[in-house]
């Protein structure tokens, strides 16, 4: 089962603040734990702040990204690149940090 969540419908075009992102991340995590796939559709989003992106996207389980169980779409290019950097940065923070390709 796949669920599409549209943050702009909840928060409007500006996604700002770590504490604002936390409940949404927890919702995504619950769905992932229940075996769902989640598509984060950023249609209508004008901008995402570093804290919001880190809290929502970078703190999601790395394997969920790697296995394609969570995806982000329609985030403006520069911000999507930055968000992917945050995810990578979190990945490297892990003690067992290794390149994705060597994770198999």
């Amino acid at each position, binding site marked *: 089962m796949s669920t599409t969540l549209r943050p702009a419908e909840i928060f409007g075009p*500006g996604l700002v603040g770590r504490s604002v992102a936390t409940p949404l991340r927890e919702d995504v995590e619950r769905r992932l734990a229940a075996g769902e796939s989640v598509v984060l559709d950023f249609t209508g989003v004008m901008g995402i702040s570093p804290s919001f992106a880190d809290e929502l996207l970078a703190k999601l389980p790395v394997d969920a990204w790697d296995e394609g169980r969570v995806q982000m779409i329609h985030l403006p290019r520069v911000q999507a690149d930055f968000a992917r950097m945050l*995810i990578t*940065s979190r990945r490297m923070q892990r003690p067992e940090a290794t390149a994705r390709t060597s994770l198999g």
Partner: protein
Amino acid sequence: MHGRDRDRPVLLRIALTGTYDGDDVERLIGDLDPLARLSRPVMLDLDVSGLVSLGAPAAAWLVAVVERARHADLLAHAAIIDSKRAGATLAAATGIGGRPPTAVHGYRFMERFSTQDELHAITEALSGTLAARGGLLPAEQLGLRMCLDELGENVTFHADSPTGGVISAWHPADTYEFEIGVADLGIGMRTSIARNPEHADVADDLDAMARVVTPRVTSTPHRNSGFGLPIASITFTANGGAFYLRSGAAVAKTGMNTSMRATSPHLPGTLTGASIRTDRPFDINVAYAELRQHFDASLQEKGFDVDDFETR
């Protein structure tokens, strides 16, 4: 000295004179030093007879220092000498007695915050007001709100300030530039960054400042990302404005003359400030792109291919 004498309030008279805009905030920090380091009750006379102007970082610091003294129950009495225009505005902002605020030639904002919810509400409202006054585009307003939020979150997440923080803004009438300031009298950057075991060896305030402006450095790596200050700094500078960071005995400035140096007096807590030009683009995506580029380059320097780490 007997304990009873130590508890007896003494008179503390501080005169603010001239301009405290931009770099002159350093002079204000010096002038307010006795109040910032207060350890016994005082009767404060804040003489603003000679005050010409007070920039946003300076106003934020003044309000934060007064609030800290009040919170510590060290203000037995406080009064503003000279209720001119500036005096009345300060009276309203600091809560020190005075006449009601009169009209000012420009827009001044000062607000205290302790929680993230309070911070988010303030930055949303303030960015909207400044955008309307400066004619910013919706994306620029959002970028400004994000930068203000990132600076404010440094207070709520890292400062351990019993009195929270203060956000201020100042937009003189008929100008293409406004200032913002964020102040707290918390633990300061050096103590904060040393909480991260990777940075427990921080040597002094200057070393601490050099570390906290580096991307991905934070006192709480499992909670925060360490990108907030770099993003704000890059965005303000790219706009053609300036960014100012002061904590302990260290100060950093970016803009026309970028520098980081040791200074005095010691500032308890942290003060950030920025000037924003409304006649030039304000684009946070510039910072996103620059930091992404910096990150990719640092990975390559270590012999990695970013594609090996990148999520799909």
